[in-house]
């Protein structure tokens, strides 16, 4: 049991930070099942990050005055309970409230687990494991969420977290000695936290927008989307060996990481087609950038700074406020662009139907059926297949109709991809802003 204590705490850290983006691929299912609007469903993602970003520093401050064992156990238990509540939420409002409670428990669990992991593994290993668990959680969250949504349901995302968290409660209470509390010694390190915030906003673009593009724009299943975005965590894992091979300094690693994220997002903005393969190389760049930056920046922000929990709180705040800022900037941009994309998409579809080699009456029937599909699925990329299945055609005309359907789907994919372009480029700009903060010359200390 003793050996399992620190790993269970690390898993808890990964779970809490994975929750930041774990529901991204489940949002379309949640939207449908809980009869929610698009802005409401976006709040399932935003509220968790906002609450975590806002309460992590005050939570860390409150932990300075007490032993972290009991508060950590309480935080993990609240996180587990709220996860179960999320799974049984019958309405979008309840789900949003449950997500807020989940973030409150998560904040307490995160900063508490840091102290407990240091107590178990020592300063260096404990902090490193806490940072790594966070990076792994952040990178794998969307993948795990997508696979669970496809295999079982969106509720499963929350259900599977409960047993891990429940096991972590006694693990937190089993930690023998908590590290000595130290007075408030160091000011928060502004630069790495600012870089972290900007980079988190950019990474939001990579993960959130990409899964939306794959599921909503290109109409791929959540599982396919999850497998596709798994390139990011795999590349993130490859980043560290690459950096070791080239022996770059931490500052260079951070700057290069920001540049790779910016380049990857620019690549995602200009795919030559809707083939998933075109997203692989840009995602690999994003993943390499993620692997080079987030742990380095977190370590820089916490390096030898005391009290440790408070500085950890600042890094959590920077990351999650960054996610919220990213969502706040990007959501209105891509929703407006998706709305604007409807007219050119409809006109392209109209042109193809008018020019199709079908009998006039079939074209009129098809136009009517397509019009119904477009009005029924207002605000989302429509599925045109039903319009084609409703047609009564002879075999020759059916071949023509099948080709037309493929052409129309291609136009929808083009419109959706084009609508996401500006948002990916803004994400790239955010990564370049992060690069600028990393490259700013350090202010000399005067004595």
């Amino acid at each position: 049991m003793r050996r399992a204590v620190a790993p269970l705490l690390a898993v808890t850290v990964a779970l809490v930070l994975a929750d930041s983006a774990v529901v991204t691929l489940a949002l379309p299912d949640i939207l449908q099942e809980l009869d929610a609007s698009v802005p409401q469903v976006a709040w399932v993602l935003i509220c968790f990050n906002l609450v975590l970003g806002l309460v992590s520093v005050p939570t860390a401050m409150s932990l300075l005055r007490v032993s972290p064992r009991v508060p950590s156990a309480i935080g993990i238990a609240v996180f587990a309970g709220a996860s179960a509540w999320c799974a049984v939420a019958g309405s979008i409002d309840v789900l949003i409230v449950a997500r807020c409670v989940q973030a409150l428990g998560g904040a307490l669990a995160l900063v508490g687990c840091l102290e407990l992991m240091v107590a178990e593994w020592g300063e260096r290993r404990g902090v490193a494991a806490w940072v790594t668990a966070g990076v792994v959680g952040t990178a794998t969250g969307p993948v795990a969420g997508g696979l669970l949504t496809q295999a079982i349901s969106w509720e499963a995302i929350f259900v599977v977290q409960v047993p891990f968290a429940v096991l972590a409660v006694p693990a937190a209470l089993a930690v023998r000695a908590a590290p000595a509390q130290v007075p408030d010694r160091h000011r928060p390190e502004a630069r790495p936290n600012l870089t972290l915030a900007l980079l988190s906003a950019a990474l939001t673009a990579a993960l959130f927008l990409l899964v939306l593009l794959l599921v909503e724009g290109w109409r791929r299943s959540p599982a396919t989307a999850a497998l596709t975005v798994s390139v990011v965590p795999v590349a993130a894992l490859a980043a560290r060996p690459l950096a070791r091979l080239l022996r770059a300094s931490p500052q260079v690693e951070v700057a290069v990481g920001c540049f790779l994220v910016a380049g990857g997002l620019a690549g995602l903005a200009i795919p030559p087609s809707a083939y998933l393969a075109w997203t692989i190389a840009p995602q690999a760049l994003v993943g390499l950038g993620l692997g080079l930056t987030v742990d380095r920046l977190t370590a820089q922000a916490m390096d030898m700074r005391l009290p440790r929990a408070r500085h950890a709180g600042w890094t959590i705040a920077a990351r999650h406020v960054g996610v919220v800022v990213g969502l706040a900037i990007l959501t209105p941009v891509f929703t407006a662009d998706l709305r604007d994309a409807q007219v050119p998409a409809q006109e392209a579809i109209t042109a193809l139907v008018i020019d199709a080699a079908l009998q006039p009456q079939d074209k009129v029937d098809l136009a009517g059926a397509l019009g119904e599909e477009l009005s029924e699925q207002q605000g989302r990329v429509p599925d045109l297949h039903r319009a084609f299945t409703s047609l009564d055609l002879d075999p020759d005309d059916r071949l023509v109709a099948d080709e037309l359907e493929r052409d129309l789907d291609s136009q929808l994919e083009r419109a959706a991809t084009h609508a996401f372009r500006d948002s990916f480029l803004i994400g790239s700009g955010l990564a370049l802003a992060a690069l600028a903060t990393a490259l700013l010359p350090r202010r000399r200390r005067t004595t």
Partner: protein
Amino acid sequence: MSAWARTAGLPAAALALVGGVLAVQLANGGGSFEPMRTADPCVERTVTAQADGIEGLTESLVLLGVDGAACRLDTSREAFVLELGQGGERTDAEIDALREGLRDAVRRMDDEGSLPPASDLVDEALDTAELNGFLEAAIRALPDSVVDAALKTDDVLLRAIDELDLRELLGDLDSQDELNAQLEVAITQAVKDSLAARLRDLI
């Protein structure tokens, strides 16, 4: 590894990776994966009717006529068709533009020699028209050369277009039967008017 290599190695690798990925994406058309742009309706386009007979002729006229109307209204063919598909009351400008577009289409097809002889239209019109049996038999007995001499297709079509109540016709776009019935009435009337005019000219 030298200090320079340590400083420049990772940035150089990153530059190469990012440059390579973006270059491959752009070289394969990455910058231009966007919806098809609509064509300028004022530029003549070639249309191919899928139907035969009067229906095929109507199809060609409508395809060309919609282009002409969109050109007059300074919009795209697709935007105009989508607008018509919305239903509701049509403006006088839209009706006038559509009528002129259809007239332009007749003239263009006449210039290209792609209009069928009037005798083709008459035969098919007789198949569906509810005429007195004696009259129908008498018309059918006329040789095609006589019919073609008496009736010019472009004249019949232009008169039919003038006869058409486009406002009512646009209200029945979903129903092919309603559409055919209206076209039939307009063409029959146009044939009568054209014959009457021809007779007047002869007298």
